[in-house]
């Protein structure tokens, strides 16, 4: 009798275990699939850094700063004058910061007015963002070349900054408008009653509440300017106003025969601001749906 009970219990616990195991299957499968899929990607980035400190070859034998010598003695390459990396850095930074300031400034005020103002043509203005968003970059690029040439901004950083800053403005405006829409009307009224001017209301009531949105659009404007390659390669012919992206591009065609050490070092250097933002602004990164 008791042995029968025990048998039954055993059977039950076995079944429970099997059930739990089966429920655990998706978890295990997910972990395996994601590990197999993600490790190569992660390794690519890690190995970029490893190779940059190596002495050539896929598995470095010695640790060396040789590939990083461009930091103090400049970059010399095939058919190119010695380039000062700090000047390239300053140019990249100018484009990224310039784009962010222009874009966020324009978008912030426009988003506020479109969200809170009532004026004729508001709807048309808002919906025009759809057209500008869908317009292909390549089609705009040719006209942009003509316009820059006509106004004398070809081969200047300012030209690229203006194009990038305005180019991303529609989407940034649309996003920040969504944040303004969420600010409760009561707060706005309260501030008005407390005799705040419109501008004061904007800075004291709205700005703190839409700050996460401001962070998000600034981050993306910065990254987009920092990573820009096509416009710079097309609109800028002067080495003195070049950026790191163009140099990385030139380097990796030269470097294939020499073992990729220098291009890995320059790329790692180029990725540092991105990585800083990556580690400190993940929430904003996960928020951006553009």
């Amino acid at each position, binding site marked *: 009798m008791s042995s029968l009970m025990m048998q039954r219990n055993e059977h039950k616990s076995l079944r429970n275990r099997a059930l739990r195991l089966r429920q655990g299957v998706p978890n295990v499968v997910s972990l395996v699939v994601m590990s197999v899929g993600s490790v190569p990607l992660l390794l690519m980035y890690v190995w970029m850094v490893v190779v940059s400190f190596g002495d050539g070859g896929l598995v470095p034998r010695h640790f060396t700063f040789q590939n990083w010598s461009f930091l103090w003695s400049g970059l010399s390459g095939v058919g190119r004058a010695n380039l000062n990396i700090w000047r390239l850095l300053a140019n990249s930074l100018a484009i990224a910061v310039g784009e962010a300031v222009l874009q966020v400034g324009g978008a912030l005020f426009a988003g506020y007015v479109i969200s809170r103002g009532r004026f004729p043509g508001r709807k048309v203005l808002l919906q025009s963002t759809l057209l*500008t968003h869908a317009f292909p970059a390549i089609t705009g690029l040719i006209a942009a070349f003509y316009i820059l040439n006509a106004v004398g901004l070809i081969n200047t950083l300012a030209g690229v900054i203006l194009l990038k800053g305005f180019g991303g403005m529609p989407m940034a405006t649309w996003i920040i408008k969504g944040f303004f829409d969420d600010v409760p009307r009561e707060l706005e009224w309260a501030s008005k009653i407390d005799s705040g001017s419109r501008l004061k209301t904007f800075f004291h009531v709205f700005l703190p509440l839409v700050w996460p949105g401001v962070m998000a659009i600034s981050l993306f404007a910065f990254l987009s300017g920092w990573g820009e390659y096509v416009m710079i390669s097309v609109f800028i012919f002067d080495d003195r106003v070049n950026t790191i992206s163009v140099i990385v591009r030139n380097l990796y065609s030269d470097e294939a025969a020499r073992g990729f050490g220098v291009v890995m070092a320059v790329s790692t250097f180029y990725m540092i601001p991105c990585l800083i933002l990556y580690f400190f602004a993940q929430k904003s990164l*996960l928020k951006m749906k553009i």
Partner: protein
Amino acid sequence: MLAPFMFNQYVIFIATAALVILISFTGMDSAFRWNFRGLLNFRKALNDPALGMVAVNTVVFTVCTMLIKMAWGFVIALTTTLYMRSQRAGVFFRMIWLLPRISPTVVEAMLWTWVFSSSEYGVLNSVMHLLYGWEPVPWLTQYPLLLNILLAGIMGSSFTMVVLSSAIQSINKSYFYVAKVDGASEMAIIKDLVIPFLKWPLTFLVIWQGLSMLTSYETILLLTDGGPMYRSETWALHAFHKAFSTLDFGYGSAISVLLLPVIAVVVVFSYRMFGFNKLMGGGK
């Protein structure tokens, strides 16, 4: 306060669109002279021997890249938000897949070039030599379109992941408990619960990623530059090459303008179907 934005929407944008359409009717080159020649550029496009292959490449590239982006992005979102018991692990894997989103395109293309480089320093060639003693293979010239699809598809799946993860996370958890109690299989849960909830985000992604793949050229320009012999050249890249390599702005504009009707149809159709707010991703 509205000035810069209005200037962009009503002056820059309209000027850009008008200019490029006008230029497509001219034989403009680097001297920027307006010598109108009617439909000559468009007739030239009909006779362009490369354009047939370019069109096929564009369709193949768009469809395959989209499939990879959607499928892999969906797998990442599903596994890391729904199936992994440990939330930490889920966040960790999503973090890894955010890396391509913050890297400059040049760095992504550089990494891809390094992996598939034809030289002995290429990762794949080094590994194959080590394991099987293979001689270096020029991967990039042998499989140019395939490697471009992999680059754009895999590195581009972060966007799908971001959108779908947050969509899955916003599904009410009790639906899953009810489904489990009712004994639904995992497949049934995905098919009848998750997918219906993701219907809109998936449609949204297909529309925008489809449009952006159709007109994309930057990653291809950086990886194989359309070569060898146009084997990885897409429509937008062809326009880019014509305009900025041969400096035939008229012809380049004409090719790029031919993309506009396709985009207009997609945009107008989806606008009618879904409305402006949904189509723009509902703001935030």
